[in-house]
């Protein structure tokens, strides 16, 4: 499979993992290994990067690049502050920008997200914003200098799959930066669909960490992302209504 390139950095895996929801570090570690991921996002709020034996150590041990995120922030101000603390602590200027509008839906707040993105880009960050499936916002964020855009398939943790594949296609069509489908993945076919729609990568956590057998689901996601990417590149056949009574059998 061809490499994924974000901000000039190459990844041979197109599956980006999150760490939330795992019952134990060991289960998480096995799932990460099975997923083949090379980039994993970690919530920085209420995490001390210096503490021994935490999730960050699991990632370091596996040689997985850490993508700090601003989960739990409700304002651009909180997000910028969290990103700065993460940069200082982890020595990476990459950040998955996540500004939540409310606790019930956990949908991203587009205005706060854009505001924070502008400030973080100006501050030298490599910004990967989590957004709704809004093609206009995706385009504006790209213009603002974001290194990728991360539209949702469905709300975080919902496992509802991709609710609006058409919008995801529109975002992909217009994007000059990688499009990473983030949130909503429930099972392997959802991840494959994201790739078939033309996304450059998929980010997921709960679908794996809360599965009955996380390592097995992680392996399934790995294969699904590969399969979806290959299908996209192969070019699918046009859809036809096979059962229509317009067969060549008529004389």
């Amino acid at each position, binding site marked *: 499979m061809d490499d994924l390139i974000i901000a000039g950095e190459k990844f041979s895996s197109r599956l980006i993992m999150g760490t939330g929801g795992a*019952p*134990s570090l060991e289960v998480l570690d096995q799932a990460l290994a099975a997923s083949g991921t090379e980039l994993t996002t970690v919530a920085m709020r209420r995490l001390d990067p210096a503490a*021994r034996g935490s999730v960050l150590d699991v990632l370091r041990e596996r040689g997985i690049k850490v993508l700090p995120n601003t989960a739990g922030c409700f304002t651009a101000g909180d997000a910028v502050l969290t990103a700065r603390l993460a940069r200082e602590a982890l020595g990476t200027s990459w950040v998955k920008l996540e500004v939540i509008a409310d606790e019930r839906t956990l949908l991203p707040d587009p205005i706060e997200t854009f505001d924070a993105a502008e400030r973080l880009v100006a501050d030298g960050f490599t910004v990967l914003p989590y957004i709704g499936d809004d093609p206009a916002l995706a385009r504006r964020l790209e213009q603002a200098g974001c290194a990728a855009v991360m539209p949702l398939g469905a709300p975080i943790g919902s496992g509802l799959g991709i609710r609006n594949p058409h919008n995801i296609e529109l975002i992909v069509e217009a994007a000059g930066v990688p499009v990473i489908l983030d949130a909503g993945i429930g099972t392997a076919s959802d991840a494959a669909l994201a790739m078939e729609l033309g996304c450059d990568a998929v980010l997921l956590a709960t679908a794996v960490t*809360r599965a009955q057998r996380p390592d097995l689901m992680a392996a399934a996601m790995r294969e699904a992302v590969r399969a979806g990417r290959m299908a996209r590149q192969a070019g699918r056949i046009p859809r036809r209504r096979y059962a229509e009574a317009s067969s060549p059998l008529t004389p």
Partner: protein
Amino acid sequence: MDVIVGGGVVGLSIAWRLARSGRAVTVVDPAPASGASHAAAGMLAPVSEVTYTEEPLLRLGIAALRRWPAFAADLTADAALPPGRTGAHPSGPTAAGAPLPSGGASLGGPPAGSGSAARAGGASGPAVSGPGKASSHGGAAVDPFGGLPLLGGVPAEGRDVLDLRSDGTLDVAFGGDDLAALGELAAFMEKLGLPVERLTGRECRRLEPMLAPSVRGGLLAPGDAWVDPRRVTAALLVALERRGVPLVRERVAGLSREGGRVTGVRLESGEEIFGERVVLAAGAWSAGLADVPVRPVKGQIMRLRSPEPLLGRCVRGMVHGTPVYLVPRGDGELVVGATQEELGFDTRVTAGGLYELLRDARELVPGVTELEVADVVAGLRPGTPDNLPIIGPGSAPGLVLATGHFRGGVLMAPLTAAILQGEEGDLASLCSPARFRDIS
């Protein structure tokens, strides 16, 4: 002699069990019963806590729960023994709590600082309860702290001094999504052969009328129990004192070694205590003394107080994807817990932590907002990579590990002590330190 490093519920239980079997032991801890055991809610709930991938933890938890009644009975009896040789304490009703070697931990009284933390009358006199009003839990007006038997030798009627209760845990769901998730969990539990009952929303509220009206359904684990960990550690400290076990209130700076062997501990004062075995039961601090994969996982927890108990059993549920639980005590205390944070050795109580606990607790039981805030603390759970404890011989001779109990120290304490006595071979292998290659 054995040196036990750590005076939390695990270390004290081990020391007590060893002392009962006639072995000489010394416990070393700068502030016994003040760490995770002091913060813990004391849920003995292996069934309602089970999740995917954690069947081994379930096996341990069920075995541990089975040991609790006998453990509690023996401990209560032992703590009521007449004072031993070392029990010569001043008997005045001093604020230092002289009759008890328990530091800040009072026997069932309100938490230190929120009232009388001391017992008056000396070790042989009757216990004096705290300033709280007697509750009518269980129908009969009883000593709210059930404290009499511990020091007076007279069992309080119908009340266990440790507040050990086994009325089950009720796991509740609000939205349809939560209910479906609970249904899946129930199916998993049934597959494991666990005795759980599915309840409708109305059945839940018949059991617990203070639950929010929007509760859609629940899952009752009738065999789950709970205990007041502060009473347990206080009773353990009394029992150890009665048996003449020395308690050294100092921090262990390191292990003493000779050749490849661990021969004792080095205190911060420079003094050494030698023993045939050193049992490392230092919880989250264990990794500072030996190479064990134990990390601190911070938990903020809140104790509320009401004149009457609000709930009859433990209630738990998911709110915004975070679990919250409420544990009622017989005296009207209601424990709300707990956050789970990876912040190293940070024990600050934060605004966000308390806000989230209360916000979530209020979703389950709206009436909690009317209660008095009695106590807020943060403790450090000793987490391991697989959430299972590390119990058994360390790789250096002379060193024994009993740490990494994560969220289950109170539940597992009796089992841990038994494993160190050579019992439960099957379960012991689940906890074996050998499963981590880098154990020293």
